[in-house]
């Protein structure tokens, strides 16, 4: 065998080895990826049932951390109290409900205006709606924090009234980041809708108001509901923007949880996290099921 052929043979062998390695990598990739995605969650759940406080080894099964939460007996060093948590959860629901209602109305209106309106500056408006989605949360958070501070200083200067951040600031902030999401979802629905239906309604003598409530609105309703659910979920889940715009006594659930997580790793916190994971999965599952029903019924 000539030297050249030998080199070729070697190169071919190496190529084949690389190829085999690549194939192996492609085979292992999903395994590794799914392990990576699920291991932290499974470990968290596992150690919420661990007998010892350690998260290094599993020593035995117990439910005592869960009963501690229910009975409100948690170590003195912990900032946790069941009452405080439930209160924070109530605050979250309150903020989420109001912010969702306002954002859904505003988002649906702008979606309709963009889809049906004929006015200049729509491209600019597109950009304005797109920005809140892509801008980093922390930027939006501090800009709102500074804005509220400046606004409250002015109010104090002009009227002598002292205003503090609270539910109103959180709600205004949540509406602001939710509008775009609602608008995106409703616009997608409007794009699927047949515009001739509206024309038919007005040809048959319906005024714009009747056309909207009798034809357009029922047709886009699934989109509006989906947008509202998305807004509510985002509102319940938001930490960064709420953290910067909340005041004393208006702690929402994520802000409360952050306070716990920041301090220590305790089995009770693992148990709370497990409960919260279960709840949010359930909530989203239900809303998806509802949405699926909404689309299959049309």
């Amino acid at each position, binding site marked *: 065998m000539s030297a050249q052929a030998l080199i070729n043979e070697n190169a071919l062998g190496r190529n084949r080895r690389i190829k085999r390695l690549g194939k192996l990598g492609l085979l292992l990739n999903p395994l590794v990826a799914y392990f990576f995605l699920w291991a*932290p969650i499974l470990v968290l759940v596992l150690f919420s049932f661990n007998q010892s406080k350690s998260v290094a080894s599993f020593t035995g099964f117990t439910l005592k951390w869960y009963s501690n939460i229910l009975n409100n007996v948690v170590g003195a060093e912990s900032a946790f109290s069941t009452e405080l948590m439930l209160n924070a959860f109530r605050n979250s629901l309150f903020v989420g409900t109001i912010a969702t209602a306002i954002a859904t109305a505003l988002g649906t209106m702008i979606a309709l205006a*963009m889809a049906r309106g004929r006015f200049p500056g729509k491209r600019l408006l597109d950009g304005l709606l797109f920005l809140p989605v892509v801008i980093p*949360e922390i930027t*939006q958070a*501090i800009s709102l924090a500074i*804005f509220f*501070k400046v606004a409250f200083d002015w109010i104090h200067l002009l009227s002598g009234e002292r205003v503090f951040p609270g539910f109103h600031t959180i709600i205004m902030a949540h509406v602001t980041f939710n509008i775009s999401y609602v608008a995106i979802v409703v616009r997608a629905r409007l794009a699927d809708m047949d515009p001739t239906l509206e024309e038919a309604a007005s040809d048959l003598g319906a005024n714009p108001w009747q056309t909207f409530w009798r034809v357009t609105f029922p047709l886009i309703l699934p989109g509006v509901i989906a947008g509202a659910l998305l807004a509510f979920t985002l509102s319940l889940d938001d930490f960064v923007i709420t953290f910067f715009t909340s005041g004393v006594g208006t702690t929402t659930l994520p802000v409360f949880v952050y306070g716990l997580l920041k301090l220590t790793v305790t089995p009770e916190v693992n148990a709370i996290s497990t409960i919260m994971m279960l709840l949010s*999965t359930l909530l989203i599952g239900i809303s998806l099921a509802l949405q699926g029903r909404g689309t299959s019924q049309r």
Partner: protein
Amino acid sequence: MSRWFRRSQKDGSLLALPTVAWLLVFFVLPLVIVLVVSLMSRGRGGVAQMPLTLQHYERTFGIFSIILWRSIGLAGLTTVVCLLVGYPLAFFISTRRRPIVQQIALFLVILPFWTNFLIRTYAWRILLGDEGTINGVLRALGVISEPLQLLNTQFAVLVGLVYGFLPFMVLPIFASVERFNFRYVDAAQDLGANETRTFLRVVLPLTMPGVLAGCALVFIPSVGAFVTPDLLGGTKGLMIGNLINNQFGGSGNMPLGSALSIVMMGVVMLSLLVYVFGNRRQTGA
């Protein structure tokens, strides 16, 4: 007045007005205020006061440039890792033959995502801590005798960011692989292209829109990350988001925080421009 009202009612702009007003007051105006504050001096208690100055930008690009570059570097690395893990994963999901298996494979990527971001990040504190699960397992196996420092490092931040944003990479790529016609692969190979060439010249260009969207969706929130470095990074893994947060406490410096924020927004806008430009070239070609 009434003529204007009637006209704006007719062309639909009246319908847009409340939302536009809301966004101008609560989104645009605050950003303008941040820009103005970033050019002012630091007063007592960290608030802004006159006169105007550029010193906060000087500091941002001066002593804080190390943190700025670290944030960009970590976000870039996060994007690369997400791409390397997410691209094959998206292919794996979309090439499942039975629809139910495909749905489950996709579901398994999305489901962890339904958990609050804080809790998902906290889970890594359990895994990476000195007394954590990874060190516990390694010690039980006799691999190490002293715990490795995993938590409060840049590595921990990288892991946390990849964990937090991997689905943002997988989903857009999955969407574009779904549209990809696998007959093109046969065609390329019939015409004599080898596997590498087929991938580089056919598969990759046609799935590029998903790749670009995924990269933008991972890079942008990573650059501005606050929770992940806060819970996992300690002082070694400090990112620009934490630096901004630190300017809003008692010993803070609001104008500096604003300047940092403006610079970060610049980075985000730049990466968006790259995305839009790349996308246009892709679809144009």
